[in-house]
């Protein structure tokens, strides 16, 4: 990920991929390796089994769960009853948790992506004093896990009276140092400085340049960051665990954990079937998001990997 614009490009040897294409077994038609196929197959099974397990077991009743083999169907196919029960249990609190999660993702992850795009672009394309310091801070921040900041953040938010409100989850989610770093590298690769110069020459203001010229170029990067922050916010557990006490503001992760904990509470009702069905419902939107945004995700990740 280094050089975007290089004046001496023409004299350089031909890029590697052109040479590879000249052999018959190139990128387009690689030789089949048994070992690789088997390895990939193993990894595939390894990744899919939990999902298969989840699906199979969300079709079982509480009683069947413990008396049948885990990786095959057994007893009545209770998936739809389970889904109905999950949505109806405790006055339909699952729906509320779902909407909460959507709120945290749309505002938190969406906001984090927006800020990362703005910041990354600015860092990539503008020179200003203290840029190196900002770089150091961002790199440092990437290394600090959010979990480590949760307790200090709690104490601070508590002072401000923000705990137990949706803001306590949304505000920390707005910051994504990794997203910022990714946008920064992506923007410096994807937007030729000449393009900016010509835009300025033609009299476009900075905002117009950003929104009309740069934003479309940044598409793949934006989607990548969006997916990263979405997954992080959707699966966020520790921060809301510390911040939220009111089940009405729980995201799905906390809610499912609370349901699961019922089974280990004296006098609590064990509802493993609903926990499992709830988990299945919880991952569906993420799967959908990945399938829909997959193309962008791939091109975003490999951005800058090959010299052009």
């Amino acid at each position, binding site marked *: 990920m280094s050089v975007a614009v290089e004046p001496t490009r023409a004299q350089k040897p031909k890029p590697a991929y052109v040479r590879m294409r000249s052999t018959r077994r190139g990128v387009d038609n690689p030789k089949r390796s048994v070992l690789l196929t088997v390895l990939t197959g193993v990894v595939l099974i390894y990744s899919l089994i939990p999902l298969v397990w989840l699906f199979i077991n969300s079709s079982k009743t*509480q*009683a069947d769960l*413990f*008396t049948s083999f885990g990786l095959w169907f057994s007893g009545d196919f209770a998936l739809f009853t389970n889904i109905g029960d999950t949505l109806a249990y405790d006055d339909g609190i699952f729906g509320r948790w779902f909407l909460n999660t959507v709120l945290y993702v749309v505002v938190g992850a969406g906001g984090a992506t927006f800020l990362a795009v703005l910041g990354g672009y600015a860092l990539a394309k503008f020179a200003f004093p203290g840029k190196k310091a900002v770089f150091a801070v961002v790199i440092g921040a990437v290394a600090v896990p959010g979990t480590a900041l949760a*307790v200090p953040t*709690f*104490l601070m938010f*508590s*002072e401000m*009276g923000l*705990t*137990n409100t949706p803001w306590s989850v949304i505000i920390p989610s707005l910051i994504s140092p990794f997203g910022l770093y990714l946008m920064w590298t992506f923007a410096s690769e994807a937007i030729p400085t000449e393009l900016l110069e010509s835009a300025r020459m033609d009299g476009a203001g900075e905002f117009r340049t950003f929104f009309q010229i740069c934003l479309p170029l940044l598409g793949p990067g934006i989607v990548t960051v969006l997916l990263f922050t979405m997954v992080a916010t959707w699966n966020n*557990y*520790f921060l809301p*665990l*510390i911040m939220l*006490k*009111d*089940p009405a503001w729980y995201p799905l992760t906390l809610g499912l954990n*609370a349901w699961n*904990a*019922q*089974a*280990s*509470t*004296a*006098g*609590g*009702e*064990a*509802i*493993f079937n609903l926990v499992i069905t709830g988990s299945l419902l919880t991952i569906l939107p993420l799967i959908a998001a990945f399938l829909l945004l997959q193309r962008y995700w791939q091109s975003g990740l490999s951005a800058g990997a090959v010299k052009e």
Partner: protein
Amino acid sequence: MKSRISPAVLRGSALALAAALALTACGGGGGNDAGGAAPEEVSAEDVQAALEEGGDLTVWAWEPTLEKVVEDFEAEHPNVNIDLVNAGTGNDQYTALQNAIAAGSGVPDVAQIEYYALPQFALAESVKDLTGYGAGDLSDTFSPGPWSSVQAGEGIYGLPMDSGPMALFYNTEVFEKYGVEVPTTWDEYVEAARALHAADPNVYIANDTGDAGFATSLIWQAGGKPYTVDGTDVKVDFSDEGTTKYAETWQQLLDEDLLAPISSWSDEWYQGLGSGTIATLATGAWMPGNFTSGVPASAGKWRAAPLPQWEEGGTASAENGGSSLTIPAASEQGALAYAFLDYANVGDGVQTRIDGGAFPATSAALESEEFLNSEFEYFGGQKANEIFAESAQNVPEGWSYLPFQVYANSVFNDTAGQAYVSDTPLKDGLKAWQDASIKYGTEQGFTVSE
């Protein structure tokens, strides 16, 4: 992720807690001096007045039957509005409570705290001493085990909500199939363990991977008193007679691999209880509710029996689990909160909770005909409450937990638990647990001796 409170966080909280207490002491009325040594005086009239005036209460509890109690209470006192919040079960909630107390905001007016954890909050005075509220007059109201559990030093730091007098739950089908007698002493228990496991290597008498609450309960039953607490002077000694009895008996089960390596409350555990591979379960009387919802397929197969004895013909029992309702020191609604405690744990709330499947802590409820005669469908129509109530009366007195039991329990598996996974004898494991507890207690500023 199980959140365990790290020593550093605890120390931090303790400092912040001290600061918070100093602040609230200035704000609190009732003629307290800044030392806050004398308990607040709140008369029955004050409580009545608070009820009439009404207000908002925040209650942190995970006990499911409280929902109905809160509903009834609000219906009876329309001016009172209660926000019942499940802030996590056990440790999760204690962490949240410590955090809120340290931060000085968001502290609830009422908090559920288990008996084993209560001394920790009592000693730090993070919960109110209820003596001044008239709790001292309730000594005959509650059965002896829970009542002694809410006291620390001179103070009464909560009202008992439920209790867990122990009993032995066993799967009749398994015992009948292999022609084994249900054990009445722990020696017979070891024999039964051998017989069952020999008959079918998949069958174990019980599951146990090291559980601090269970171990301390059995030591309690055996008459051991490993913990002696007098203010900040603490003694930890796992070498007394009762502890030795427990360690020697359990060592046999460990040596011969007669305990299923399955942790309680795990999926495999529920599975084992259902499939008959775990044949017995010695635990608190709150268990029937969990059987009914967690192991529905085995309805009719299980029964309750008195806890096996250390001496033949003995009657001793112990408490396992159970919790109290407390009023955090930072609450400004002491009188109103006490009114709720009184309603839930002494008044009409008790029956409401029994109807919901909870096991009571009041003598009146434990002795009532209706309670004793109720038949458990899950246990094939057995009047199991007779056994539980008997057990509640036979809990040896004088047991106390450490004022840092939450931490001590969290390191049980690293120390005593080694006996379960290696050749370390349980006796040495308990000694290691003792050393770890003493070390931590000393770091926390207690005077700890062996």
